[in-house]
């Protein structure tokens, strides 16, 4: 920001565009994705050299064949991505999206099976129940963090396990929901399923529409409301925010409740969705494994730099390569290859921005020893310093 003062160049300076934070996070996201794909390709080469190229082509282009499915599977991870990203804005690391997702899914299932409601409202109530379930499971880490100063990372991990065990037990003990011979939940009534959008060859449903609308609402909350401002301020510097009279504790709890609700909605959207078999719905298998969609949400949120609109794009992208990943089994690979790519993307997005800055500085040192370089650099350094300072502050808070 200080850089703007001491040079009077025209407004559309290339440098000014490239030093914009939005551009930087976009560049970082691209860098992380690129490196993730490269590592994925290397692993494919190690696993099966002959098929690696064919497999990698599926990863890159396979999703094109099933764009409807891409959106279908993007819905739950969009919601968990929002759950992680929203908390991240406040410097909270919501690793508990899995548990919140599972809880939301169970609440939605419970309403879908056990309540008797008139047709057109039933699925809406089921979705709202999922929202509530997620909120409850997000409320707990929030309370622990705000009142007892327990690190939210540990709390949410523990409640991932607790939620998963509880839900699996409740489902297995409920004959209406659970089909013990299939070891899965039963299909829910087609009247309770979320209506499909009617795109040929896929079951993409209103879930994705709601997801996008919610992302936009979150964007408005973050950018245009006092609560959103307080939230971001607390994320940047907790002590300064408290000093300015913001209620840190209340905001922590509220943030975690909203974040949990997002993940819970993700669970509801996933389980209430119509599946590929006509008239049937998605099912859940209670085998004591933590829902992976919650963890994928972390990748989605980081790729979208915790920005709600960016999250829509990154969820679609992750879902796109996941669809491609399932096709790699045609040439002998397994869909887990995408989980590897996603993990590598998270790894690199943790420091991609720093890496990009370093690379840019290296290139600058190589190429630019002419013009008025020193002046611009003088102007630029403080901005970077402030930014890295801010980043570190959020890291301190996240810890």
């Amino acid at each position, binding site marked *: 920001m200080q850089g703007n003062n001491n040079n009077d160049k025209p407004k559309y300076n290339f440098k000014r565009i490239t030093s914009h934070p939005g551009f930087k996070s976009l560049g970082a996201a691209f860098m992380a994705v690129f490196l993730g794909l490269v590592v994925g390709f290397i692993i494919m080469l190690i696993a099966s050299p002959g098929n690696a190229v064919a497999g990698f082509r599926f990863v890159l282009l396979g999703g094109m064949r099933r764009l409807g499915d891409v959106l279908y599977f993007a819905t739950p991870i969009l919601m968990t991505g929002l759950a992680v990203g929203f908390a991240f804005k406040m410097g909270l690391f919501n690793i508990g999206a899995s548990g919140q997702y599972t809880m939301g899914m169970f609440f939605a299932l419970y309403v879908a099976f056990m309540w008797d409601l008139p047709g057109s409202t039933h699925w809406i109530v089921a979705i709202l129940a999922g929202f509530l379930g997620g909120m409850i499971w997000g409320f707990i880490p929030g309370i622990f963090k705000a009142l007892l100063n327990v690190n939210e990372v540990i709390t949410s991990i523990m409640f991932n396990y*607790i939620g998963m065990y509880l839900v699996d037990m409740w489902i297995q003990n409920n004959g209406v929901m659970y089909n013990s011979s299939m070891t899965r939940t039963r299909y829910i009534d087609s009247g309770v399923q979320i209506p499909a959008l009617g795109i040929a060859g896929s079951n993409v449903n209103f879930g994705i529409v709601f997801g996008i609308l919610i992302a936009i609402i979150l964007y408005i909350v973050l950018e245009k409301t006092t609560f959103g401002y307080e939230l971001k301020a607390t994320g940047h510097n907790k002590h300064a925010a408290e000093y300015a009279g913001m209620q840190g504790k209340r905001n922590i709890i509220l943030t975690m409740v909203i974040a949990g609700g997002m993940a819970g909605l993700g669970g509801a959207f996933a389980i209430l969705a119509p599946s590929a078999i006509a008239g049937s719905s998605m099912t859940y298998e209670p085998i004591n494994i933590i829902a992976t969609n919650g963890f994928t949400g972390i990748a989605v949120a980081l790729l979208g730099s915790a920005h709600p609109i960016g999250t829509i794009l990154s969820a679609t992208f992750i879902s796109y390569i996941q669809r491609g990943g399932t096709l790699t089994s045609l040439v*002998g690979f397994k869909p*887990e290859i995408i989980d*590897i790519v996603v993990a590598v993307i998270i790894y690199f997005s943790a*420091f991609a921005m720093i890496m990009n800055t370093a690379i840019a500085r290296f290139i600058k040192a190589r190429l630019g020893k002419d013009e008025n370089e020193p002046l611009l650099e003088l102007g630029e350094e403080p901005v970077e310093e402030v930014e890295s300072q801010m980043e570190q502050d959020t890291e301190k808070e996240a*810890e």
Partner: protein
Amino acid sequence: MDVVYYLIQNMLPVGVPLLLVALGGMFSERSGVINIALEGIMLFGAFFGALFVLNVQGTSMGPQTILLIGMVVAGVSGLIYSLLLSFASINMKANQVIVGTALNMLIPAIILLFSKMFFNSDGITTNMRFYIREIPVLSRIPVIGQMFFQRTYLTVIIGFIILAIAVVLLYKTRFGLRLRACGEHPHAADSVGINVYKMRYAGVSLSGILAGIGGFFYAVGVTDGNVSGHTGVAGFGFLALAVMIFGQWKPIRIMFAAMFFAFLRTLAYSVSLIPFLFDLGINQTYYRILPYLATMVVLALTSKNSRAPKAEGIPYDKSQR
């Protein structure tokens, strides 16, 4: 009395992995790096340890020799995997929690991919038995002999030896003092000529070795030498973090905390053998939740006046104050 013996005999092989991994977490955090990747490092060590066992089982090597070599293999692989965390968090100054999460997610996916492609299963299944019925001489000691030296694993003894080494290393050596300085006030440490980056690398690497060994010991003592990419190490890496916090970053306290959690877990899995608990007719799931719930209660009680290393989680930057 038999029930008590049974519980303690079963508690120790469960508690030792927790103890080792929590000690690893302690070394890492004492140097100033949060190591949330313990879960992944455990699984990585367990996988390579089990891979080694799979390749040598059936040869003339005795089970205890295999266990010792497997331990070294697991430790080295844990060390290598932890370098990914060191690089990102020390050199690149990345957010340590995010990097740790990425490393936790990466390894189950790799294990599942390779196991499904090459072994047609979710992991590695070995048929090596490391169980020791009784250790000569020592098992004859009344009470103690039956508790600690019968129906056990070699891992238990190794675990306590490592605990002793850890105590000496942390409190009685120059290295330990410097390590602790880097976690409390890295700039002060730097000003007297300690290389903070090197010490942090050492701390994370130690945690990598210990977590790798801990993972292998988990596979030996808890899952009968098998490793699955699906269930992994069942959250033991995270429990170890809680154990470390409960133990207030001090080795001996960590040992007691680890045994406390191990006892709860053993209790949860042997409800059907204890008539009193079995008669209560409570669903077994509640007992399985018990260790996680106990973690929360313990953390709620101890976090208010936590004695965490002051500089943990903050990347060290020479140019800052």
